């Protein structure tokens, strides 16, 4: 009897110990098959489809619920309130940059690049209300975003410098322990951080950290540096959730055709003439 008790105790201990670190297999939810917690080269396995659940894409900072810019959209176009994702609460704008942010917000229907289906840039692509997929290989990690067929490949080899400034930037990654750290540079000044008009210049540098917290969660952090726009570097963080539905996949959201009337409508031939 005593013997059996100690066997059970030992078994329990083994179970507890083996689940404390990243286990060998991560059991999927929602009917998804179990997936290995590590890739064949021993890294945390970030492969999968992920999505943020915060209200960061409306406003990175704390914000109250508010009406949207188009009354015709009613409640559908309104902004849900939410707790911000900025460490310390406020984005440290320089005074002139804060003034520009306010103009951006007031004119967001005509100025927000999302409205025009432009590539969202980093970090905005990560927390838009669309999923994104990670395809992880030892020397390169692809992040493909549903919005606007945008994507980027994180170079895990020898550092490369940006050939030209781009919408999605140039990404160099490395592993710091079990955290994927991505250094993004080479951005243009065309993208925003959210629908509230938060913005940056072409001096932007974004250092992201992806840490697998369990089978279905990544802790995401991004440190944003832009001495032309901000008084100091600042940080956002939020969890990313695995899309666990069976056979879930990205469905191309090629939004160009949804923005053409807006962008080119004034150039359509007038049938009355």
């Amino acid at each position: 009897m005593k013997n059996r008790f100690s066997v059970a105790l030992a078994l329990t201990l083994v179970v507890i110990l083996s689940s404390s670190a990243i286990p060998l297999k991560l059991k999927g939810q929602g009917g998804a098959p179990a997936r290995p917690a590590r890739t064949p080269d021993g890294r945390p396995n970030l492969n999968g489809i992920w999505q943020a659940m915060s209200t960061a894409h409306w406003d990175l900072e704390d914000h109250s619920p508010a009406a949207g810019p188009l009354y015709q959209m009613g409640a559908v176009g309104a902004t849900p309130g939410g707790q911000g994702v900025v460490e310390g609460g406020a984005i440290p704008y320089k005074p002139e940059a804060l003034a520009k942010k306010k103009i951006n917000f007031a004119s967001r229907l005509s100025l927000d690049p999302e409205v025009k289906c432009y590539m969202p840039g980093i970090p905005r692509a990560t927390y838009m209300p669309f999923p994104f997929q990670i395809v992880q290989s030892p020397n390169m990690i692809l992040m493909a975003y549903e919005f606007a067929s945008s994507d980027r490949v994180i170079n895990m080899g020898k550092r490369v410098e940006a050939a030209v400034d781009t919408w999605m930037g140039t990404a160099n990654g490395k592993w710091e322990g079990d955290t994927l750290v991505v250094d993004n540079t080479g951005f243009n000044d065309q993208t925003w951080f959210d629908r509230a008009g938060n913005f940056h210049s072409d001096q932007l540098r974004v250092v992201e950290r992806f840490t697998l917290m369990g089978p279905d969660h990544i802790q995401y952090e991004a440190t944003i540096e832009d001495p032309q726009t901000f008084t100091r570097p600042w940080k956002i963080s939020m969890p990313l959730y695995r899309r666990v539905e069976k056979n879930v996949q990205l469905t191309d959201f090629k939004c160009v055709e949804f923005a053409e009337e807006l962008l080119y409508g004034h150039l359509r031939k007038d049938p009355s003439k």
Partner: protein
Amino acid sequence: MSRLFLASVLAIAIAIAAAPLATSPVLGQAARTYTAPKTAWGHPDLQGWYSNLSENGTPLERPDQFAGRKLEDITGAELQAIKKAAQDRTIASFAGPLHAPEDWWQKDLNMVKGSQAWLVIDPTDGKIPPLTEAALARNAARAEARRANPRGPADSWEDRSLYDRCITRGLPGSMMPAIYGNSYQIVQSPDYVAIRYEMIHETRLIPLDGRPHVSSKVRTHMGDARGRWEGDTLVVETTNFREGEAYRGSNGATLRVIERFTRVGPTTVKWQVTLDDPSTWARPWTFAMPLTMDDTQPVLEYSCHEGNLGLRNILSAARAEEKAAQEAAKAGR
């Protein structure tokens, strides 16, 4: 001494004789001896950057001048002469007062390296099989609709191609060579193969887990792709295309595009594409071309829509011409 000399002449002669075989990987000669390297998880490793710029200008179907001849028989000097002529034609077609600076694309354009006189490999006559009755009826209905409601070339953006509008070149169009932007990248994981296309910018995410296609109600420009490994060949079957824009006027609901990617040499992947749509063609048909690994041609970000001044200018120029014509008519009255 002379024997050694003879031997080296012989060796060179053999090398020259064998060269056409080695440079025609698309026809399969090299596939028999080469084994692709494997990823850490045991799949053939296709990862890297590719270009097929040098296949630009190759006609899809067999030109009539080659009637009765086999694709694999047109090699060497004969093939090079055809390619050189195509290169000269391409460069000449961009001559004139309005064109991009020549050093933007001409120095990289080397069609003489192109490997084939045409692309269709099945049927062996190099011709796309005849259209079915259903396809002829569909084409006639589309032509009738255009006649009933005539439109100018730029009445609206909808009169321009999906390519002009920076939406998509579709499938297999996204991997058909053009004079620039012919870089592709393949990234693999145990469960997915991703293919990136520079032109316009596309990312195809191809699951390998055997899942069924999505519902036929879900239609997308690039379709719904499913992949599997057949030996060392990646087979990708794509369906669920949109109506009215499927390849060569085919039926988006029934078209199946079956691609085969096989690494046949250290820097060559054979890309073979079978088009199967019983409501469009009398039988399935296949074309093929090599994709060449090239580390000097990485996929760069092509913010096509973001910088699409071309479309805006085409539309505004059309409106300006209409206005000028109206004013001229008024003045002449």
